[in-house]
């Protein structure tokens, strides 16, 4: 490339790289004081947040995966071409919709509704199972999981659909030619999309871990651990969001950074794993 334009673009690249590294760098740098001072007790102290993050994200993924896969299949298999793009647009709109609105609606609309119907029923009839052993409250792990799954499903669905819909028609034909029906065609195509589904799940899980406001509004903000999905709890991003503003001592601030560092490491790991999965699935 010609010199002048090369230099210009390199400046842009360098700017981007230095931004990334200074972000990560400041994260690490700010965490160090508390990690050195408290070591493992730091993460024991924050266990409720770590526990909450895992619970909410895992339940959200369990709900989102079948949902996202089903939607991807339906859009690819049963919708005529013209209507397909409308639904894909709605799907993408949902994926880029402000998360704060999901959270606000979740807290003041979905929450009360579920509390008086589904959650109440779960507690009343299945309350002997530890998962549903507490009374419904304003915010809970389950409510946050449901809202989170609504938020990440459109994204996961697009990823799956991208791969699923590109499977050549000859695969459909060869299954039909064996005297089989649509059910088997879908089964085979799902098999071919295995990697994309797994990759999409991992990527969506990583996103779910990092989601802040929607979860903060719906998880209940209780710094505790509970085996019941209906109790309030806290997640890592929600905790940081709640406490960072009032953290004053260097130790307090540094501890929150350490927690953020943990979140960062987990999140990036999942992203990398997902990329490896999807990349190697390109047959």
């Amino acid at each position, binding site marked *: 490339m010609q010199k002048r334009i090369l230099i210009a673009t390199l400046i842009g690249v360098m700017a981007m790289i230095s931004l990334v590294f200074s972000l990560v760098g400041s994260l690490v740098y700010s965490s160090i004081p508390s990690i050195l001072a408290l070591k493992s007790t730091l993460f024991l102290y924050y266990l409720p947040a770590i526990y909450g993050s895992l619970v909410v994200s895992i339940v959200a993924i369990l709900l989102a995966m079948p949902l996202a896969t089903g939607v991807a299949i339906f859009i690819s298999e049963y919708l005529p071409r013209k209507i397909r793009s409308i639904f894909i647009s709605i799907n993408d709109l949902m994926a880029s919709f402000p998360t704060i609105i999901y959270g606000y609606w979740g807290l003041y609309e979905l929450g009360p509704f579920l509390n008086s119907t589904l959650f109440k029923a779960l507690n009343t009839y299945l309350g002997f199972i530890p998962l549903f052993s507490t009374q419904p409250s304003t915010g809970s792990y389950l409510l946050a999981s449901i809202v989170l799954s609504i938020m990440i499903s459109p994204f996961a669905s697009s990823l799956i659909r991208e791969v699923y819909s590109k499977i050549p028609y000859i*695969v459909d*034909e*060869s299954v*039909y030619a*064996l*005297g089989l029906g649509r059910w088997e065609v879908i089964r*085979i195509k799902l098999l071919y999309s295995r990697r994309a589904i797994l990759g999409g799940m991992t990527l969506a899980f990583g996103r779910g871990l990092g989601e802040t406001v929607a979860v903060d509004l719906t998880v209940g903000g209780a710094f505790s651990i509970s085996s019941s999905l209906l109790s309030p709890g806290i997640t890592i991003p929600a905790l940081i969001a709640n406490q960072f503003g009032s953290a004053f001592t260097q130790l307090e601030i540094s501890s929150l950074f350490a927690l953020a560092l943990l979140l960062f490491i987990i999140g990036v790991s999942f992203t990398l794993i997902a990329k490896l999965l999807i990349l190697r699935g390109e047959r």
Partner: protein
Amino acid sequence: MSDSLPFVFEIVALNVWINNRHILKDIRDLRIPRNSVFAIMGPSGSGKSTLLKVLNRLLELREGVKIEGEVKFNGENIFNIDPIRLRRKVGMVFQQPNPFYNMSIYDNIAYAVKANGIAKRKEEIDEIVKQSLIRANLYEEVKDNLKRQASSLSGGEQQRLVIARALALKPEVLLMDEPTSQIDVVGARKIEELIIELKKEITIILVSHNPQQAARVSDYVSLLYDGKLIEWGPSQRVFTYPKSELTEKYVAGSMG
């Protein structure tokens, strides 16, 4: 269905339109004799694959397809038969070898068998897999490890696996759409030998991309040109004394 009739398929009259383009134009009186190899040849775009896909009613699954006419399978109008039952009796092999790549050799065949409800017990399925691979002349080459992934086979072997998979359903007819055009010469030869062997038990309708192959392998041959049936008959007769000038030209190689 009566399978003692001399003709397994009879196209009484057939017209096909795809997206309003007239693809097959008034195909009449085409009869496929049982236990023979019947070749359909013609330049590309003449509608050979389309004709083949009418026979197992695969064509109508696509959008924009209009089919008019009467086609008989063992004396019955195919459009009155349940398409799924039809496809179990009339199998298909495609141009591009397409086994289920992520599955093992064994599972490729077993899947079709299980999904069709032909057999459930493992011993039964094992036997069917073995017999199908033998019939497809593939058993010797893969018998040491049936759990290998289908993607590890060569093109010719993959195509024979596809044939084995189709044979597992014990069809009466096997439709083959240019089965050797994407395969190397050695593999292609093996498949041609297989076709000649198989005709003892089933009827094979073969779309061929070159007249030499049709001449080598078929008992009967037909020429399709621009969607029209030009002529058909015993291969020996058609190749030595063609009734139509078009046939002469095509066989001599001066057409696409």
